[in-house]
């Protein structure tokens, strides 16, 4: 049994202009101890998917489908049950470490509180544990730094603190939402190295638009486009043998491949194209692509693609 299995998940936002289909019929699995990369351009719905799993979306939404975690459907859990799962079973590392820490609370206290939410420790023990967590994320002179406020930390250090908070209760699954966003290249490498090492025994869903980070950290990768997955495969397959025209375009738009952009724009999530969602931008478009919506098909062992052209 997979640790996390998402079946037919839909997250739609009703707006005055229509239904925004941010996540539309997603099926995926995250196995124990694996790092699963979810990549896609800005606005494709990958962050919404991450937040949907944790049921963290505050605005009015319509959710459908099933999110099976350790055999239980998270969508059927009560809010109180979800609170016990958040942080203890599934933790999230958010983007923007600068704003994700409370400016008026000491760093050590914030980690200690994350621990105390789930474990019955007294303040002193929780604080000791927080210092150990700071050590684990390689923050030097940890006991002294735990008494400092977030503004006394640099961006990379804050991201380390965020990682420490996420890992404080030893969760089985980590959802990392763009953990390297806004970090310098050198700091980014350090954070990637740290996360690789520290999350090795855990399953991780890594949400990113940084292909380099994904290639470095992930076992399998899924590419998301306009609210649905278009291709997923192992890292080697995905980068070595991309099948979907969007995946190829995505890889070709990397600087090392010569910055070739994909023509056109991502479609609006309210008014999606009929047929294949990528067809208006695709250079292999066929007649069937304009009429029928392609299904996910397994073209090779463990390599799935949603494309008539690639699967024919």
């Amino acid at each position, binding site marked *: 049994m997979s640790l996390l299995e998402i079946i037919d998940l839909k997250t739609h936002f009703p707006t005055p202009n229509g239904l925004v289909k941010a996540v539309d019929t997603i099926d995926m699995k995250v196995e124990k101890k694996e790092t699963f990369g979810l990549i896609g351009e800005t606005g494709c719905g990958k962050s919404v998917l991450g937040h949907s799993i944790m049921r963290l979306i505050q605005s009015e939404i319509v959710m459908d489908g099933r999110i099976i975690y350790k055999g239980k459907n998270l969508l059927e859990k009560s809010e109180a049950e979800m*609170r*016990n799962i*958040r942080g203890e079973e599934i933790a*999230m590392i958010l983007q923007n470490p600068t704003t994700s820490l*409370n400016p*008026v609370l000491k760093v050590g206290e914030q980690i200690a509180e994350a621990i105390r*939410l789930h474990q019955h420790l007294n303040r002193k023990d929780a604080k000791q544990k927080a210092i150990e967590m700071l050590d684990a994320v390689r923050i030097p002179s940890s006991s002294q730094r735990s008494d400092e406020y977030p503004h006394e930390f640099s961006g990379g250090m804050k991201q380390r603190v965020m990682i420490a908070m996420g890992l404080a209760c030893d969760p089985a699954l980590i959802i990392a939402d763009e953990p390297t966003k806004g970090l310098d290249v050198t700091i980014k490498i350090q954070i990637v190295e740290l996360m690789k090492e520290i999350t090795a025994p855990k399953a991780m869903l890594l949400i990113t638009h940084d292909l380099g980070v994904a290639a470095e950290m992930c076992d399998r990768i899924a590419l998301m486009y306009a609210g649905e997955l278009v291709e997923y495969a192992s890292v080697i397959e995905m980068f070595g043998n991309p099948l979907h025209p969007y995946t190829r375009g995505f890889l070709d738009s990397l600087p090392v491949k010569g910055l070739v952009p994909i023509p056109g724009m991502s479609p609006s999530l309210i008014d999606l194209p009929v047929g294949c969602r990528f067809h208006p931008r695709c250079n292999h478009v066929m007649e069937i692509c304009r009429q029928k919506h392609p299904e996910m098909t397994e073209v090779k062992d463990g390599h799935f693609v949603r494309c008539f052209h690639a699967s024919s």
Partner: protein
Amino acid sequence: MKQHKNQFMDIARRLNESRPATLGAIIILLLCLMAVFAPQLSPNNPNTACLDDRLISPFTVSEYPLGTDHLGRCVLSRLLYGARISLMVGIIVVGISGAIGITLGIVSGYYGGVIDAVIMRFVDATLSFPSIFLAVTIAGLLGRGLPSVIIALIVVDWTAYARISRGSVLSLKEKEFVESARSLGASDRYIMIRHILPNIIGPVIVIGTLGMAYVILSAASLSFLGFGPQPPTPEWGAMLNAGRMYMRTEPHLTIIPGLAIMVMVLAFNLLGDGLRDILDPRKTVIE
């Protein structure tokens, strides 16, 4: 506790750089000392009437440094004991209305929707009356005495705290650290108490300090109008009212309590303005 100590040290250091605020703080400190040590400092019993010594002018008789009123009571002693009442009313009213206002403001801003609409319409309704009339009405309904003044002022005063807290919460609840806390399994109540409350303390302290000035002035006004503590309790507003009849012949009976009220209100305003500069929400809430 060390955190608070550091914060207070920091505030104290920055207050020191602002002359008016320092002056305000010193005056408040002196007034507090006066109130606390009133029994030791008073030359006479404030309530003992001595009809032989009626209407003595200040600085004429050493037994009564600030003279006596129409019943021969020592003005200085009454002034010292009166400071106790003014400060006590201020602290009680600001404390209780702050607690009510902050709680309702946070709940209102955090949950929004119907709860917010109901609480804020309550606030609007309260604010649509001129506050002193509302206080007079309530004090009138409850009968004379200090408790009714306190209740009347709380009814009027809590709205300021509710508005300020709600406004701050509206922006704070969208902050990512709130989402971060929720993703770690924090409940709504936990987020409100542990993450939002510490972030709104700055603006609330400013409103509270300025509110002290307003409350002390309003309490004196209500007493002047006769709703406050009844004779012979030494209250500054009531002293002012009693002295009114002798304004032409013995102006010190109105000038002295009037000055006392003015100095106390001014001191709280000076401190409040200074604190506003230091605890500007734009500087403290968001880095």
